[in-house]
């Protein structure tokens, strides 16, 4: 029987939540990576390893690896540096295994690659050699590379996203990059939107294609049907253009989930103190509010950019975690929800893996 593993990164380490495919009962393990702030935890299906993107106020940034689903962990930051004369690397924000390598997105924004399962790292220099680099500036969360989407079949092709900078694509293994922000509003910029300066919060690839991408931006929700070359706004009826997370359905390219939040000046909270996830079934053409089982009174929750996961079971499960430590789960694509953990530290990330039994 398949096992469902929910990987939760928090301000105070990582936690693992285990269930079977019914997703009714969950057990919590952790904390792992104690003392480290964990911004992302990923599962590598090629070898069953877990990777955690971590940083400690004392010991600096590191990528942790567990070869045995959390029983034991090692860590390394060898090579995670811009050099003695470069900017100081402060945090790892994303770790993504793909095509036999592991990629790490870091702060200040940049991309690193490991070809030995996270033991050593090398800088993918081409990204920070993009001509726009002098224009890069931090958002409130910092100058962070938080999203990495490798192409499904082409190991030389990849998209990355950095807050207040935008989406970039490489087709040559990281040697050169193209900004992919056309069509995305920059409401905080009084001039015309620039090639960069787009505050992407999270983007995800639609099922079964490398052409369709969904993006939750500081300024709305967008879809691209040409690999990011052009974006079309699909914010539509959402109660706020602002939000962080975005989850895509594993098989239906028209289905995705977002969690609208109040704008920054109003706190980045669930609108009206009523928790809700919003789902589209038509590629962003329309949105439906999903709140059955979520708290609807004084629920001033905030959900950060990495804190939504979608599993791959026949009826996909959707999960999100709040900065106030709750994890909510739906085993029916968001139709109904349950709180499955209540008192974790501030949650930064939620990822999920279905592991063959």
């Amino acid at each position, binding site marked *: 029987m398949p096992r469902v593993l929910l990987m939760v990164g928090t301000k105070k380490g990582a936690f693992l939540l285990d269930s079977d495919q019914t997703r009714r009962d969950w057990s919590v393990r952790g904390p792992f990576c104690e003392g480290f702030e964990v911004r992302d935890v990923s599962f590598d299906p090629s070898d069953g390893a877990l990777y955690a993107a971590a940083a400690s106020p*004392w010991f*600096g940034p*590191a990528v942790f690896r567990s070869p045995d689903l959390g029983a034991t962990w090692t860590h*390394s*930051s*060898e090579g995670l540096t811009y050099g003695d004369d470069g900017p*100081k690397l402060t945090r790892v924000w994303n770790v993504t295994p793909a095509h036999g390598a592991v990629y790490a997105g870091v702060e200040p924004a940049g991309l690193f690659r490991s070809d030995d399962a996270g033991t050593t790292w090398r800088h993918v220099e081409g990204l920070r050699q993009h001509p726009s680099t002098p224009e890069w500036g931090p958002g409130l969360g910092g100058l962070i590379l938080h999203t990495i989407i490798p192409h499904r079949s082409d190991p030389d092709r990849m998209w990355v996203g950095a807050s207040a900078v935008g989406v970039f694509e490489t087709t040559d293994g990281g040697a050169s990059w193209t900004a992919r922000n056309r069509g995305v509003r920059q409401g905080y910029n009084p001039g015309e939107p620039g090639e960069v300066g787009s505050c992407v919060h999270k983007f995800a690839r639609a099922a079964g294609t490398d052409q369709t991408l969904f993006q939750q931006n500081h300024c709305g929700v967008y879809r691209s049907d040409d690999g990011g070359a052009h974006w079309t706004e699909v914010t539509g009826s959402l109660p706020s253009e602002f939000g962080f997370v975005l989850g895509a359905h594993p098989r239906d390219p028209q289905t995705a989930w977002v969690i609208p939040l109040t704008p920054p000046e109003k706190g980045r909270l669930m609108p009206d103190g009523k928790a809700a996830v919003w789902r589209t079934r038509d590629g962003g053409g329309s949105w439906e509010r999903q709140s059955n089982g979520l708290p609807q009174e004084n629920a001033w929750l905030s959900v950060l950019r990495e804190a939504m996961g979608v599993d791959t079971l026949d009826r996909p499960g959707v999960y999100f975690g709040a900065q106030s430590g709750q994890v909510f789960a739906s085993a029916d694509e968001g139709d109904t929800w349950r709180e499955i953990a209540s008192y974790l530290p501030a949650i930064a990330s939620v990822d999920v893996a279905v592991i063959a039994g």
Partner: protein
Amino acid sequence: MAEVRLPTALVTLFPGTPRRLDLAGATVGEVLASLDALVPGIHDRLFMAGPAIRDHIRVFVDGEAAEIATPVSPRSAVDVVLAVSGG
């Protein structure tokens, strides 16, 4: 050889590492390089690019605040301490 004393939180990251070790080196940097030779990877937990001691790590030699270049004698005690920080 200087006596080096390490914080629990640091040695916990490297299972099997003792909290007290006798290590060679004429400066703090050299002593902690000797430590890294015994415990690969521990240098990256204490130093950042520059190289510089991490912002929230403090090193003392014979009770006095020290930097990378601070001299260490064979009879010195080198304490690596976590700064009061976090939340």
